């Protein structure tokens, strides 16, 4: 059982962060960021060619982190691989010692930098979770027995700000039924909205890690409001981050995120911090969120 899984099982409040592999083979910066985070988080998600932009693979980077004693969460999307390749990559992850798997549908290919690519989506997030469960039961999706059975800690994502929310929750319920043991959410900026969401999914009894994205600028907030489904940054926060001069923005971003975390941490079992290059502010964020002691 992964440490991350054990912490969740033990009802501890967990912290995850995220790194995005580079376009190319130079992993120096990525590893530097992971080192910055290692002592402050329970696990680090490695994105799977986020936004459909071709990148170094998630599995290879998960392996590099694992080798360094940093626990990865292997993000797997259904965009680029059929059921044969997905199951094979899951087995590959298992033999490399990677247990935490986050199962996602994946963005559509036209959103990325190879819009001409053939989209796959042979499985979806629910059937990918079922594939993980099948492998753990010792057989593949075709029912064929495995020689050597992997162990995984599968998770999934949910968007508390989805509109309408009903279909999102109905799908979350299917993900739980298909084996999701934890959820990481899309970025949350409105504690009241998050609370309403948490109340509606209480019946699922599944650990939820609230998604937090450091708000770097008013422009970024407006961009997300326009372009990222389910993300709603309230006007008050846009004004707050916009009101400070550029050099003070990291401190303000940390202050806003810490306040959000303090507001919602009682409603969930962890926080998933998406730093988008500002990994160095995570330690301070955890101190201000009262999730870590002053150093």
């Amino acid at each position, binding site marked *: 059982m992964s440490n991350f899984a054990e912490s969740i099982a033990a009802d501890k409040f967990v912290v995850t962060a995220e790194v995005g592999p580079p376009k190319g083979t130079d992993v120096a910066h990525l590893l530097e960021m992971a080192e910055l985070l290692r002592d402050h988080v329970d696990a680090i998600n490695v994105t799977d060619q986020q936004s459909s932009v071709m990148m170094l693979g998630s599995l290879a980077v998960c392996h590099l982190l694992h080798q360094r004693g940093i626990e990865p969460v292997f993000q797997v999307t259904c965009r680029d691989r059929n059921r044969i390749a997905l199951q094979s990559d899951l087995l590959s992850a298992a033999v490399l010692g990677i247990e935490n798997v986050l199962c996602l549908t994946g963005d559509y290919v036209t959103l990325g930098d190879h819009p001409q690519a053939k989209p796959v989506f042979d499985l979806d*997030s629910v059937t990918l979770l079922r594939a993980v469960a099948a492998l753990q039961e010792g057989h593949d999706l075709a029912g064929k027995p495995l020689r050597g059975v992997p162990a995984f800690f599968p998770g999934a994502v949910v968007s508390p700000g989805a*509109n309408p929310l009903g279909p999102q929750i109905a799908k979350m319920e299917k993900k739980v039924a298909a084996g999701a043991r934890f959820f990481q959410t899309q970025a949350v900026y409105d504690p009241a909205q998050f609370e309403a969401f948490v109340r509606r999914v209480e019946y699922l009894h599944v650990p939820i890690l609230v998604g937090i994205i450091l708000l770097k600028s008013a422009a970024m907030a407006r961009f997300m409001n326009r372009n990222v489904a389910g993300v709603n940054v309230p006007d008050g926060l846009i004004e707050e981050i916009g009101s400070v001069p550029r050099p003070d923005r990291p401190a303000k971003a940390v202050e806003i995120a810490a306040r959000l975390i303090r507001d919602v941490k009682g409603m969930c079992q962890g926080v998933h911090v998406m730093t988008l290059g500002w990994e160095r502010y995570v330690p301070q964020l955890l101190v201000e969120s009262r999730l870590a002691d002053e150093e």
Partner: protein
Amino acid sequence: MIITEQKELDEILHSLEGHERVFLVGCGICATTWSTGGEKETREMAARLAEAGKDCTGWIVTEEATCDVRTTRRLLRRNKEQVGPADALLVLACGAGVQTVAALVDVPVYPALDTLFLARLQNLSVCDERCRLCGECILADTAAICPVTLCPKGLMNGPCGGYEDGKCEVDRERDCAWVAIYERMEMLGQLEQFKIIHEPKDWSKDRHPGFINKRDKKALGRG
């Protein structure tokens, strides 16, 4: 209905390069209704080809669908005095129609239309794709709204995280198929159906190129 679109005249003339005498065939069903290869369009095409210096030996519009070999064969025979002299045929029908004609004559046959999709006709100007001909209909489980066709990802178990205000992440003008399915199930009092986890689609049922012989019992059993 099969939806088609007329090719640019330049492309058609490029196909017909080196051919002098052309006979035209339009389709009496889909291309007639959608006004891409009915009588009016076939007559107009003949006139445009004549303007471009081609000798149009004649034109017909099949009474039935051009893709019905039986009726198209009969019609070509009946018009053999005009078909015979032609050194090429131009067909204003879907790809199946073009190939039906090509298999019946010994001269080159060219398409005048691009074949787009299988659609619901809302009126004579508006149609929307409704069926992908995927070989295994799941409409019984999806409130009669097809996610294989209407969800760009062809998802089988509910919406992705990309919808916003009920619109699709790929095209914000388009309704998210799974939000529409959810809302229709809700309206029908069938939301319990949403909970069913559907297996990944069985692509072995997607039989292309399709071939059926209803009299060959063995072939039918093979699926």
